[in-house]
């Protein structure tokens, strides 16, 4: 099955995340904090693509990677 146009693949590097939750503030339907206060991706389709990229741009430790789910192109960093 092909990913729908505009869809993204989002990942959080758990070795880097410090649980700042800036991403949860920007895109609460995409990111959640787990019991260890680490950000995880709950739903990569939970916000518009530019909102998700903005969340990645505003991670203070650059733990978030965003790829175009169709082309695999890196949207951030």
């Amino acid at each position, binding site marked *: 099955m092909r990913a729908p146009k505009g869809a993204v693949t989002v990942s959080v590097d*758990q*070795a*880097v*995340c*410090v*649980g*700042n939750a*800036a991403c949860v503030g920007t895109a609460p339907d995409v990111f959640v904090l787990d019991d260890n*206060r680490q950000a995880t991706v709950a739903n990569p389709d939970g916000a518009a693509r530019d909102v998700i990229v*903005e969340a990645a*741009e*505003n*991670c*203070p*430790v*650059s733990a978030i990677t965003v790829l175009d789910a169709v082309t695999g192109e890196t949207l951030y960093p």
Partner: protein
Amino acid sequence: MLRVHDDLYRDDVLADPFRYYGALRETDPVHWNADFKTWVVTRYDDVSWVLRHPEFFSSAFYAREERPITPPIDSGDEAVHEYVSAFRATEIIQNDPPTHTRLRAPFRHPFSPKLIREWRQVIRNVVSDLLDAVEARGKMDVIEDLGRPLPLRVISEMLGVPTGDRELVKKQAEERMQSAISLAPDRMRRAADAIREGCEYFDRLLGERAASPRDDLLGVLVKAERAGCYTRAESVSNAQGLLDAGHETTIQLIGNGTLAFMRNRDQWDLFTSSPEALAVTATEECLRYDPPLFALRRIVAADCELRGKHLSEGDRVLWVIASANRDPRAFDDPDVFDIRRQPNRHLSFGGGIHYCLGQYLARLEGQEVFTQLASRFPKLRLETEEVEYAHLRGVRSLKALPVSWN
């Protein structure tokens, strides 16, 4: 059980908070200090919990505190103390929601990593200029030649302070900070004089900015005033608050970080082998290992339990970053300075709703300083093993850090 004394202003505590608060962390992690009438919270998990429950732990210290000030100030200075308190009470970090939310809102975007990243080149150039100025000398004082000028120049530029006024603004900031970190009896008077000057100065500058708008932090304040979000008194106070916050703490990051490198030569040698690649994790480790602020305070807003102790409304709480960052329950080999440590979830920027607004700016400044020091002066070494700390509370502030590199 080890008996821990309660004199938080003793020289040995101020010079080595890790040892003193580390002992408390292991013996009595939520400790009632009867002399200072404050709870001392020292474990990582507990500090983290305090930070995430502003409904129990208020930041409105100036508004709520009714006990006499400690250590005492000169008699006759009660009125200036009240003036300073009223001024501080309008700062973002001295407030709880909803006021805190309102005051912080205009700065969320300008201080986002995305926008702060645009300042990297400016920071890089300032560091480079400062190092150019001392290179031929073969030595410098890291505090005076790098730590003091860099953050002030950057935050002045972000605010929109004219270049010619930087010295004036620096003097005001240094005097104003006395009220927060000094233990001297004349601290409130000195701070009050600087605050009066600063208020007049920024009132005038904000007036100019309102007449001819510019895209800087004073412009943000002017916009917030127009939107009815800020009063003029609040913008005058917070312009100075931003200046102070962006100034004092970054000096310590640069000084204490450089000292940590010099005292752990293997880590400096590792760092100089590829500074760019290691700059991010190394700066985080400097922040963790010897944090710019080692302890801050809250005041209990509603009765609560912490680790079996009952905290009552109005109690003071000191939350100790120095011990939380060295808690073996949270970090492997916590007393080892390891510039590749990852993850590094230190609490040096606090957490929760008050999480340091300038944290990304501080990170960039640290990264640029350490990278350029390592690339230009890989042979950097201490000129003396005897370093001295200023007698201040909450910050471990080196009086000087003489180094050489030839």
